[in-house]
């Protein structure tokens, strides 16, 4: 039909029931008795992974990414419930677009899973920093993010740290961090 561009027909995969295990990067060279090169100048690999484990994990996040990029902020638990609403009766591992669309439309119309306002986010950080220093140490942030609430995977933790951390003090100045992220989004 003329007008909006054709909807994507790609099927979406449901998450696996098993908890997300951190994926360990495999570095270094394998095996002996082979002629190896000296490290190429000016190049650096940024992580590698063995087998399809990483692939599977990536797929599992696709629905979450789609829903969140539409402006909704469900928790992991809410996300699982939402997916349960749309997945197939016989678990094929896929979700049909035709089933997803009406449910998602409803979510948007009802303005469900509204995003967190900036000031609430700031207060959350302040709760974790009762001494009101204005920052959290790297260890503290890791502890809270990977042990409390709906824990981060190792990958998520690394990602957050790479942008948030101040390398000199090894701490996270959360006010600046929040401001930076908000500016980037707009």
């Amino acid at each position: 039909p003329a007008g909006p561009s054709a909807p994507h027909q790609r099927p979406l995969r449901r998450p696996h029931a098993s908890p997300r295990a951190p994926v360990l990067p495999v570095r270094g060279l394998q095996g002996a008795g082979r002629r190896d090169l000296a490290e190429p100048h000016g190049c650096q690999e940024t992580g590698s992974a063995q087998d399809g484990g990483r692939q599977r994990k990536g797929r599992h996040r696709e629905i979450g990414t789609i829903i969140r990029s539409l402006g909704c902020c469900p928790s992991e638990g809410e996300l699982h419930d939402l997916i349960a609403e749309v997945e197939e009766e016989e678990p094929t591992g896929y979700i049909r677009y035709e089933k997803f669309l009406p449910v998602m439309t409803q979510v948007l119309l009802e303005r469900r899973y509204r995003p967190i306002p900036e000031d609430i986010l700031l207060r959350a950080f302040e709760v974790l920093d009762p001494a009101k220093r204005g920052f959290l140490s790297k260890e503290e942030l890791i502890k809270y993010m990977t042990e409390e609430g709906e824990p981060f995977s190792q990958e998520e933790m690394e990602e957050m740290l790479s942008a948030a951390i101040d390398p000199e003090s090894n701490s996270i100045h959360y006010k600046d961090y929040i401001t930076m992220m908000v500016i980037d989004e707009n």
Partner: protein
Amino acid sequence: MGCGTSSSAKDRKSERALRAALIIQNWYRGYSARLKARQRYALTIFQSIEYADEQGQLQLSNFFSFMFENYTHVCEKDPEFVSRLFGNTHQDDKDRQDYVGLVDVPDSYNGPRLQFPLTFTDIDLLIEAFKQQQILHAYYVLEVLFETKKVLKQMPNFTHVKTSPSKQITICGDLHGKLDDLLLIFYKNGLPSGSNPYVFNGDFVDRGKNSVEILMILFVSFLVYPNDLHLNRGNHEDFMMNMRYGFTKEVLHKYKLHGRKILQLLEDVYTWLPIGTIIDNEVLVIHGGISESTDLNLLHHMERNKMKSVLMPPFPIDEDYAADLKNKVGTTAVPRGVRTSGSLSEQLTKHEWEQVIDILWSDPRGKRGCYPNTSRGGGCYFGPDITSKILNRYQLKMLVRSHECKPEGYEICHDGKVVTVFSASNYYEEGSNRGAYIRLGSGMTPQFFQYQVTRATCSRPLYQRVNIMESSAIRILKERLISRKTDLIRAFQLQDRNKSGKLSLGQWAFSMENVLGLNLPWRSLSSHLVTTDKDGNVDYMSSFQDVHIQKPVKEAQSTLIETLYRHRTDLQIIFNIIDSDHSGLISMEEFRTMWKLFNSHYSVHIDDSQVDELAERMDLNKDGSIDFNEFLNAFYVVHKFDKLHKSDSTLA
């Protein structure tokens, strides 16, 4: 936890901490998802534009057919011109002495000196030299190419390989001239050797800036270990593709004196590259994909070296017509790949040609069935049912292919039967994708290894990488917009009945998709491309405000400039073909003839006289010849708010 009143304070405190953590995690996951979505959009933009360009060359191919059909008319007027255009370049081995014998390596040459017969020390030598950005002398390049052709000629169309638990094989995908990626693979996985075999699955050249170096390393390694280093032909191992996508330019730039010889020899070497590799009689490794009619038996037996280029399909030649041509213009003046003497046997049959195109150009898709690959203009889209059918027919278990850039460097589809492996990381832009390679061995599951080359000493955070990618993608998208400005404005105005200068978002998206022919998420991208008012209506002229095409000559009309800009890559290819001595110059007469043909085939509504005038102004030294590269480079897009660099609007 203890009991009593003090613990309830503790409980409240840890409950608050829990809630705070939840809030932060929730926010972060939302933010992270939006970043990934932006990354995806950028990738989609890069990919659609890339494929649209590939599709564009289908038109070019039709143009060549059109030219040949109108041959006799043009012929009568200017036989010289036509013979130049369709000049035959046939190499005999006896030319080798002529070619290489005339090339001298001066004592002052500081680059690597290869010793024939080649050994593994030559591989090391080359790698060290290329790391230091040295250039291999043309003499050695030519020698390597001659040797490679000689050895490749003895190889069958499909190389059959056996692995064992102690001798696994590594498969790499597209490299596209990215030397850093090849070096990184060798660093992680070891150099090729008798105990460390490799398959390189095509597309070694074009786009990146070290295609020559990659070819040299691969060919030298092949000559040292011909039974353990396997090369499959990709769709870019094609002299016509090279003209468009940068390899020709790279060669002529690095080898100003002997570049032409190298290119001519390369044309031939490409045609001798094997079509594919079959591992343990189970895994088929080819560059693109398959179609429902893929016939491996036919592909095993055809004369693969007759496949010159995707842009030169076999021409149905009538024997009388052929004889007529021969009389009129002589044997040298017929399209490459077609010869008048015993003409039909010098070509592939149409069926054979299409079979090879399918192998080199097809892409797997989720939809069942087999459909023409409209994005690329060649090959087809094949579904999981096609994969099953073909694999079963030949008792194979898996298809490994390349040809498509994947964010993670590899992708598995069709229920585990099709694997895409792509080895050029950061293909579109820094941070756009990882590269990967596969290790296979009998009795083991395939292992995937990923990597990403980075120039920075410490890796950038994700949001910075996404920003870089996004701005790069938007930039080339804007250049696309400006090259279709007239058509876009016409389409917008058609919908803007009130002449208000505004359209709804839906109307705007519709026109954009229709005119540009790119299947992109226009609504999500609108904030980057156009200004919207508080009612959500789009001010459609705002896209054109901060970009314009630089006019090489002030008085030239905008539509002319726009048209030339839009077709610049096609024109570049055409000019390159006319300029058979690669001098960089064509005569005014040739330019005029070419333009007339181009004009009529592409239905370009530009006055011949306008182009004439423009060309005359471009002939700066008034000697009757035009430096066409300068001519075409004079058309570039200026981004108003980007003072830092002049945009190079090709994807290379």
